[in-house]
């Protein structure tokens, strides 16, 4: 068993969102993503409606708040950098000036930044909730049944599976290195790190060869076979259709004059 459980660490929860079929979740996530990204800059307040709805879904999913925040934190440097840049951008004229206490900002720049930052945060929240409430295998199966090319889903599956195996292998190599004393000197450490990477890559290629042999041994002929999936329960289809419809409606509202 791998020492690192990199994925599916919240898939065991038993929330209404977890219980939804991965296909329904994937389609809804795509619809919500399109609706969020389609909000024009002039309609920024609509992003708050999306944010509210997504926070309700996140609440229903029972994902721990700390777990969610930890994953959302990846966006923090980007948001901080953008905010600092906007704060130092002078207004184009008096009509463009936006007074926020002691700060005078460019209203246009602020609106664009609020739109970009808000959309990035919401898109990430959608992805995090989707990943947190589904298993990797379920999402790959859902992608396959939505006609994402099988080669792509197979490669993604391999990458996910063997990334964890490689991470473990790299961990063992680092432990072995540490067991033989502390490496002194930046250049020496760099050289050893590089040679470890080469070794890891060579082992990866050898492993890929062995996996290919195992696949051929079980009749692989260039196409990844897949089991048919169980039909989606009708209430879930109705729920998914409702969410897609509301997303489409919000998209249209965003573009209304």
């Amino acid at each position: 068993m791998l020492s690192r459980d990199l994925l599916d660490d919240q898939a065991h929860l038993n929330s209404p969102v977890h219980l939804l079929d991965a296909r329904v979740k994937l389609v809804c996530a795509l619809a919500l993503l399109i609706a969020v990204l389609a909000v024009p800059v002039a309609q920024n307040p609509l992003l708050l409606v999306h944010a509210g709805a997504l926070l309700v879904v996140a609440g229903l999913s029972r994902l721990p708040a700390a777990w969610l925040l930890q994953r959302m934190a990846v966006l923090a440097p980007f948001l901080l950098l953008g905010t600092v840049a906007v704060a130092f951008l002078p207004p184009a004229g008096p009509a463009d000036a936006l007074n926020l206490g002691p700060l005078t900002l460019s209203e246009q720049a602020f609106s664009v930044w609020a739109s970009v930052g808000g959309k990035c945060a919401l898109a990430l929240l959608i992805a995090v909730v989707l990943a947190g409430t589904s298993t990797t295998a379920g999402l790959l199966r859902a992608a396959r049944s939505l006609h994402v090319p099988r080669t792509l889903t197979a490669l993604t599956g391999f990458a996910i599976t063997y990334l964890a195996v490689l991470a473990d292998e790299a961990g063992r190599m680092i432990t072995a290195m540490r067991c033989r004393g502390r490496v002194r000197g930046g250049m020496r450490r760099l050289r050893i790190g590089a040679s470890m990477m080469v070794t890891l890559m060579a082992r990866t290629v050898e492993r890929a060869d062995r996996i290919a042999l195992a696949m051929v041994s079980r009749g692989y002929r260039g196409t990844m076979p897949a089991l048919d999936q169980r039909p989606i329960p009708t209430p879930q289809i109705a729920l998914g259709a409702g969410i897609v419809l509301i997303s489409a409606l919000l998209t249209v509202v965003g573009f209304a004059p």
Partner: protein
Amino acid sequence: MNLLEIADLHFTWPDGTDALRGVSLALRKGETLGLIGRNGAGKSTLLLHLNGILHGSGSVRVKGSSVEDWPADELRATVGLVFEQPQDQLFMPTVLEDVAFGPLNMGLASEAARQRSLQVLESVGAAGLAHRAPHHLSAGQMRRAALATVLAMEPELLVLDEPVMALDPEGREAVMALLAGLPQAKMLATHDLDLVLGLCDTVAILDAGRVQARGPTREILADEPLLRAHGLRVPATLQ
């Protein structure tokens, strides 16, 4: 008629290493043969010839027909190969999908492949693993799952490379009991001579790319000079 007949098989790797230098062996239906020998003796290379992955010069016949005359799919369903590293054998997102991989490639309909896979998982005591990700399994669970991936193809000959390597005593015993209960003819390549003693009817010693000795398990494994000459030792239970 023998299930498997190998005659004067030679194979050289692209780097010039002569891995097999005239291997001849036969295996009857229902027989379990232990293939033993030191590291680099050619055991794994020989196994890869049995379902047509490698092709050397000489002859490998399964059920009387040369492996080159067999349709690849049928040959791979008849000769099931379980690899040394279960992590290399388990590459699909879930154990169930992995076990169904072979049956689906054989042309089974999805539902039939699902049912067969679930039955096989049950038979190897791994029914509860069907929806688990293979890389989250313990070493013993991985061994069972890897065996199930091959058993789902209903092979007549089961070829296993180091089937109990890296297992704890309990896991080793469980896998041994599982293998002992399988009706198929089996060929086991291993260094574990206690395993061979417990499971195999006959033993062949492979060294320097040739079969150096072949005979009943107890007779061969009790012959200390013979074993020592080929880098092996008498198993603890016979000492």
